């Protein structure tokens, strides 16, 4: 395998000479961004509540959520597969081997990261704000909007970590999506396939583009965070 072949593969990909490439990129982004959005909608308030709530068994819940951050993607994929399989509880939805199934599986991977990192961030902020907010009658769930808003720049990092995990994983989308060309093939499953077929330049080209996309997204988020943080220290 030589360097020139990689360059040619990337040029072909970007130039559209490799059919079906841009739809793959599009589907990857759609699945991952949807999963991160879903996980944010559920995980930010949930993590914040976990950060400020005190109840018996809280420590166990915190440890469990932290442990779930390391959930192997194939296991998450398997769990969603069982849920969505014809005889599973969500079988009638008919979502298996579709983008919806992949979004669900990746949400399951991202959610613990968002909850765990949000919990940590909000718990620290709560320690500082608790008395002032209690004085304003903002206790319990009523404190959550203030805390999430004031922690927003730290929480972007949590969402980026979630994005990183979702965009990099292959096990979950492979199991519940099936890597069907033109339908559920994503960048990571395509890389796995091309590598196993022996088409290393194509796999490497895809990999580099995946890294590039991740880099761009992180740079944009980081830049936005820096600009915003200057106004709300």
């Amino acid at each position, binding site marked *: 395998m030589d360097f020139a072949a990689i360059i040619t593969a990337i040029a072909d990909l970007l130039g559209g000479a490799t059919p079906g490439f841009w739809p793959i990129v599009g589907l990857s982004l759609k699945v991952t961004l949807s999963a991160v959005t879903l996980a944010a909608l559920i995980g930010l308030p949930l993590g914040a509540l976990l950060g400020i709530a005190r109840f018996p068994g809280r420590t166990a819940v915190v440890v469990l959520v932290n442990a779930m951050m390391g959930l192997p993607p194939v296991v998450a994929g398997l769990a969603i597969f069982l849920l969505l399989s014809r005889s599973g509880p969500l079988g009638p939805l008919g979502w298996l081997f579709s983008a919806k199934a992949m979004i669900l599986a990746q949400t399951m991977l991202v959610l613990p990261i968002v909850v765990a990192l949000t919990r940590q961030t909000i718990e620290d902020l709560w320690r*500082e704000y608790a008395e*002032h907010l209690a004085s304003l009658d903002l206790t319990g769930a009523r404190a959550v909007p*203030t805390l999430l808003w004031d922690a927003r720049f730290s929480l972007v990092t949590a969402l980026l970590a979630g994005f990183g995990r979702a965009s990099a994983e292959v096990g979950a989308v492979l199991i519940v999506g099936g890597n069907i060309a033109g339908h559920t093939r994503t960048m990571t499953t395509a890389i796995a396939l091309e590598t196993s077929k022996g088409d290393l330049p194509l796999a490497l080209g895809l990999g580099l583009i995946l890294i590039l996309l991740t880099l761009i997204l992180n740079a944009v988020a980081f830049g936005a965070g820096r600009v915003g943080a200057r106004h*709300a*220290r």
Partner: protein
Amino acid sequence: MRDTTSILPLTVESLVFEVDGRRLIDGIDLHLERGATTVLLGPNGAGKSLLLRLCHGLLTPTAGRVRWALPEGRAAGVKRHTMVFQKPVMLRRSVFANLTHALAAAGLGYEARRARARAALERFRLADLADRPARVLSGGEQQRLAIARAWALDADVLFLDEPTSQLDPSATRAIEEMLRALKDEGRTLMMATHDLGQARRLADRVLFVHAGRIREDASAAAFFTAPATGKARAFLAGDLLD
């Protein structure tokens, strides 16, 4: 005739606060009337901060009670007492947003809270700082914002826990002027301090607290000229108390 719109008087009855069996507030009775400035004096660890927090409702007493003339110190559903902390809590927002946040929590609508926040900025000479992040203000400016925030909430009663302990003399004077103005508006202040000069300047009444109890409850004039207890005499003389 009793003023049916005021949350005062405040009555504290046999107040006890314990943590892990340690009695930190040991049976305090207290009556707070409208208008006067009451200063809490006493050595470190006496229980001044705890007493302020208990009165404000941030802590739940182990026994006894804190009773306002109106339930929970609310008039028409609005809490009429507020607290300024030793280390002011500044939200990670602009000075202006720190004010509007508190007012939104108190239930004011968008326009009403913006107008009120602007009035508070004017009154406390913070207008130039309105758009600055509150957390980059100096200690004195932060404490001024904390008091402006308390004023904006239009509370009848302000609890203040050593509001000037981290400030230089000129910032301290500025805060004291603000407090005096609040008093002249008819607001009731209850403040802990270690600054005896400040206590002399501001207090109408002194509560001398030691080991979780009020040892002396006197007019400021009486307390400073002729303290009744040996403990208070020793405290004023700067002696160590056991």
